[in-house]
């Protein structure tokens, strides 16, 4: 059975913009899926229907057969705590320490009063430190988040998601604010961890060569629809021209460094 199932998902934003026009996808457990497409193609919207930050106006998204779309309240929060998410702009609380940001990932699993008092069980503290170690910045735990470089901040973002012990990881343009070498470092960390933990991962990316390098499967989107679905080997320049709706030059900057 597929791990994540999109069933004819449509999203119409208030104001009438149709961001998704009927997307059906089956993603098996442990797959590393990269979604490519122009800005406005619906990539971010699609990824946000998985944890119901955007609620589909039609259709359904299910994880392990349980609908996320119809879940509400406590049930939805429980499902979300199983889904890690990392963001283009990292979304860290800049004034808080790195460790506190990572501990936010544990909130879904600790009793509410612990979150209120900020007294996390020793096991959770240790796990948060372990997550930081896995993304290669164990020494930054007590530094303020805004004192880190962009690449390090995104690693904190990954550590926060890992702290949830997720079975699904969503990454919305995780490297779009980073320079090319740092982007590659962050992407290979993400891929390595997804492999090691068997986490089903959906990543939105701009760069063609990075999509080819890291993806198990590439999904191309244009104008709210899936227009390509295949392996990196099948994702030829011709296929990308179709996704982007125009020719791609050899030396064009759509390729990362």
């Amino acid at each position, binding site marked *: 059975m597929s791990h994540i199932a999109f069933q004819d998902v449509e999203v119409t934003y208030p104001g009438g913009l149709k961001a998704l026009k009927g997307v059906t996808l089956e993603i098996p457990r442990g797959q590393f899926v990269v979604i490519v497409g122009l800005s406005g193609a619906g990539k971010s919207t699609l990824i946000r229907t998985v*944890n119901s*930050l955007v609620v589909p106006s039609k259709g359904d998204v299910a994880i392990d057969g349980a609908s996320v779309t119809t879940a509400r309240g*406590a049930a939805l*929060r*429980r*499902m*979300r*705590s*199983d*889904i*890690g*998410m990392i*963001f283009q*702009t*990292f*979304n*860290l*609380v*800049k*004034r*808080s320490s790195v460790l*506190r940001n990572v501990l*936010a*990932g544990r*909130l*879904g699993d600790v009793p*509410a009063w612990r*979150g*209120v008092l*900020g007294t996390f069980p020793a096991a959770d503290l240790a796990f948060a430190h372990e997550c930081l170690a896995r993304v290669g910045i164990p020494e930054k735990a007590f530094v303020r988040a805004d004192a880190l470089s962009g690449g390090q901040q995104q690693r904190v*973002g990954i550590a*926060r*998601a890992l702290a*949830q012990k997720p079975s699904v990881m*969503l990454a919305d343009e995780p490297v779009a604010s980073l320079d090319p070498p740092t982007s590659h470092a962050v992407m290979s960390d993400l891929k390595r961890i997804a492999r090691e933990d068997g986490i089903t991962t959906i990543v939105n990316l701009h760069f063609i060569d990075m999509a080819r390098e890291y993806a198990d499967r590439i999904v191309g989107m244009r104008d709210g629809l899936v227009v390509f679905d295949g392996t990196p080997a099948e994702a030829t320049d011709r296929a990308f021209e179709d996704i982007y709706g125009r020719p791609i030059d050899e030396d064009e900057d759509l390729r990362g460094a």
Partner: protein
Amino acid sequence: MIPSTVPRPPAHVRRTQLFVGALAVAAVVLFVLALLTINWPTWARVQSGLTRNVAPLLNGLVRPDLKTFPLAWRSMWETFHMAVLGTLLGAVLAFPLSFLAAGNLLGGRPFAMPGKALLVGVRTFPEILLAIIFVAAAGPGPTAGIMAMGLHSIGFLGKIFSDVIEGIDAGPTEAIRAAGGGPIQVFLYAVVPQVLPEFASNVLYRFEINLRAAAVLGLVGAGGIGLPLLQRLQFRRWDEVSMLLLVIIAFVVTVDLISSRIRRRLV
């Protein structure tokens, strides 16, 4: 080719020009009316006032009466504590209100309207008016002053707090929601850490304002150094007034210096 006529500015530009012109005319008319309305003192009155009142005043002011110092210090100390309690009262009550009045947390601007309206209502009353009401209700003394300052501070701090809340970065709130956090966890882990330093800084700023206000509230019997000051002003004991003023100035300047230094480190 040069057009035969200069193009006229579009209608909305001409409307604006007309409006600005009308405003300027209205301002001039108001100014002239104000000049005509005021009863100007005669030159003779100004002269006698200068010799009879201002000369002894300046004479007394440069010779502060040292015997008044203990009283001045005691009154100012009371004033200080009034300001502390008034600010604390205002801050504690403004904290929850500000979240009700912030348009980005409770599901949209319409839900924030009652909170905003309440805060505007509280701010409308000048402190001195509140003090007069509380003196009438609770009798003269520092309690009335503290209540007046507290109530006025709620309006002030509540407004600033809710502005700070509306200015936070929404990214972290989305991140906590995505991690399965409920409203309370979003509040504690995404909102509070972002707003707390600015809240603290504004509470200190309001304390500076309240200290100066508390020195005046005594004029209506609401406790503090204002009452002894008023009495000595009425009896024209300029040397004692001078002592009281010196203590007020020294105290306010010192508190401002310390407080603004702390505030710089907070934000």
